[in-house]
């Protein structure tokens, strides 16, 4: 039997010459003495120290689904996301629609050297025909039959290891991929990380889009507010395409912010991305948590970007300005939750401090929303040099019968088409979906009525 390497104070050299423990080299052959057990321990310890280099907690996940969703993520990434730490930007599209997303994806890769955050990654649902996915049922079918979707989400940083992960989903619900895949993807995320919170920015189709688009959006919305067991979305920010195209704001350099850029700005305000490191109270996870707790999922954003204090005179006037152009239909009488995100230039911080703002908001809320049950103010300081204030009001409590009135009409008109027996074969939905959708929407509105009492 070979003597053990280190036993009873004796250390053997590679030639099995015995040496006293502590000697550096063999007294017979001069070879170095190595304590294998100790060296093995050191090597393993060094490997364990690498844990800090493989840990990338992704607190904020920005996810775009469908063609327009991917474009919104790309826009957000270019404007704000690339300088945000602890984030991931994901794009999911179907093969038929993915060409443009791929261009976006690659163009980011080419210029990634300046980025702090990795560029958006793209996941493609492959279709057997390569056709565009025009309808909700096809998108839902495609997403739920994609074997690599869960793996993509895990690879992108969705993990139950963190309890403070918030997912920001941007999706246009008029298309097949955005409407069909979004609820399923959110459900997958919830199953991977049950602690995660999510905020869905749902872009509703324009009034002049075909009824099929309205049908898609209405179906998708019903899924988002009611999953198999629970509400899938914690918070849905409802945005009408027609309204967003008319909304205007002023950026930090005096440039106009319009159309989809407003949505990027909205996400940036929600996440505190605009503050550039200044103190901020932006906590979207808290808003999502509160919405879920209150049972109010759907909110209408009202944006006032770059309003001059000199011109408007008070925060209440800017609030009125925001309320005058909500991004979806809203009924002031029905509002039960009001979240206010305010960005004040650093130089105005002394005159517009939190207590002043809160007092002004409380008074305005009381005067404006008679049935208000809860209000949250999140103040951040921006690095704007001018006196311009950014304000985002998120109003919850209006019944879907009002906020989605326009798409409901399209849905109703399209119902007859779905009842056709060939529809299921071609577009993945049976006529059963119609009562399901109507029931879910009705249940949500009934719940709101109950809360309002």
């Amino acid at each position, binding site marked *: 039997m*070979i003597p053990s390497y280190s036993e009873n104070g004796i250390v053997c050299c590679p030639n099995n010459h015995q040496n006293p423990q502590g000697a550096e080299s063999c007294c017979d052959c001069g070879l170095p003495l190595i304590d294998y*057990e100790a060296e093995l321990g050191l090597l393993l310890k060094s490997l364990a120290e690498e844990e800090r*280099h493989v840990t990338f907690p992704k607190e904020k996940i920005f996810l775009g689904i469908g063609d327009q969703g991917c474009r919104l993520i790309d826009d957000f990434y270019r404007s704000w996301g690339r300088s945000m730490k602890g984030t991931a930007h994901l794009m999911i599209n179907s093969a038929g629609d993915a060409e443009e997303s791929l261009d976006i994806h690659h163009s980011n890769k080419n210029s990634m050297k300046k980025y702090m955050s990795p560029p958006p990654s793209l996941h493609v649902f492959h279709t057997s025909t390569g056709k565009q996915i025009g309808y909700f049922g096809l998108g839902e079918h495609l997403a739920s039959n994609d074997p690599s979707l869960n793996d993509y989400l*895990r690879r992108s940083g969705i993990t139950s290891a963190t309890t403070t992960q918030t997912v920001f989903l941007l999706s246009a619900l008029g298309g097949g991929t955005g409407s069909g895949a979004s609820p399923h993807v959110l459900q997958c995320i919830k199953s991977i990380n049950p602690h995660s919170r999510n905020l869905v920015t749902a872009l509703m189709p324009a009034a002049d889009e075909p009824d099929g688009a309205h049908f898609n959006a209405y179906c998708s919305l019903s899924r988002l507010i009611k999953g198999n067991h629970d509400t899938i979305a914690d918070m849905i920010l409802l945005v009408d395409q027609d309204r967003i195209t008319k909304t205007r704001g002023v950026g930090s350099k005096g440039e106009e912010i319009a159309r989809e850029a407003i949505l990027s700005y909205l996400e940036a305000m929600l996440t505190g991305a605009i503050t550039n490191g200044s103190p901020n109270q932006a906590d979207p996870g808290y808003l999502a948590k509160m919405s879920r707790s209150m049972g109010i999922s759907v909110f209408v954003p009202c944006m006032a970007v770059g309003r001059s204090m000199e011109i408007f005179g008070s925060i209440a006037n800017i609030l009125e300005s925001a309320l005058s152009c909500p991004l979806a239909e809203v009924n002031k009488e029905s509002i039960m939750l009001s979240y206010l995100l305010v960005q004040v230039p650093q130089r105005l911080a002394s005159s517009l401090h939190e207590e002043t703002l809160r007092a002004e908001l409380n008074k305005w809320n009381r005067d404006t929303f008679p049935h208000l049950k809860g209000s949250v103010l999140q103040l951040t300081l921006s690095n704007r040099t001018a006196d311009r204030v950014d304000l985002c009001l998120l109003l919850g409590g209006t019944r879907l019968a009002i906020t989605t009135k326009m798409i409901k009409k399209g849905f109703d008109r399209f119902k007859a088409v779905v009842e056709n027996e060939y529809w299921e074969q071609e577009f993945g939905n049976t006529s059963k979906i119609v009562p399901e959708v109507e029931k879910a929407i009705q249940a949500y509105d009934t719940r709101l009525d109950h809360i309002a009492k």
Partner: protein
Amino acid sequence: MSNNTDKILYNTDEEKLLVQIKHVQYEDIGKGKLMLTNRRLIFENKSGLFTSPNQAFSLDLSSISSAEINKSANTLIVEWADEDNEYTVTQLLLPKANTAVSLCRFLNDNLEILRKETELQQRKDSYQAFLWNTASDIWESVATLLQIIRDLTIEDWDAVDASLSRVAEITSALSANADLAVTDQVQTLIETGTSRDAVSVLQGVIDTMRSIGTSLQSEFPTDEKWGDLVFDDSQQLSWQDLRYIFLFVGWYKLLPLWQQLGETEKIEDTRPRLVTLSSLLERKITIESMQESPSPSEEQEVTDAADFIDAIAQSIESSLTIKTGLA
């Protein structure tokens, strides 16, 4: 031996004449001189008084499968295999019966010694092949495991997946051939990989490294066919050297990761360790590699520790490639 025996020499390292017998009749070729050396059995005859001797046959002892006496005819019957491995029988009529018996016994004794030497050499060669294959598997397993850590630092899960498959393949061979109990650990590691949880995967890598490391520390090859060869401390590769190879590749493959992360202090701390391990391994690996490789010795030219370590690492890798027949 008998009076007809002209000379008996004793075995030395080179080919030496052991026995020489005259007046031996080789089938119908005629009479001549039969010589036995430590390597061959040779028959020479002359066609005339002034002609030079003709070597009628020369058999390598290793080709002889049996040698026996036909007592009635004083005949030595030798069975041997030709170049095509076909057995041939040669009959040699010796002058006297006792000469034939003595020669036959002497020939068989030498054949037996030769067989034992050949068998021992084959076992040694086989054991060396086993050690080199195991060393190669250890090198590649550890290198791939550390590559996984590098891939984790850049979140390249495609590369992680590819490396995990490779690790499974190599460690399966390692378990089957060298009886190192790492299969369960690797299975757990692969399952962890699907979770896409980098910290768990890193822990799986560490656990697998620990399994290989402790197996090398506490276990020796259990296959009975190696016998005492396991404890052979010759200048060839030994089981103990596998431990040094394991440590060397472990530390060495960490260097590029630390370079990538800018951990210069760790690199500096590790180099003396690698130099020590290199000095142990170069006795067995670099020298052998240099003997077999026609390329000039890099080791003689390098003075810097980093270059020396790199040279040793390259030598180990090329030795592993040559010895395992992968070149």
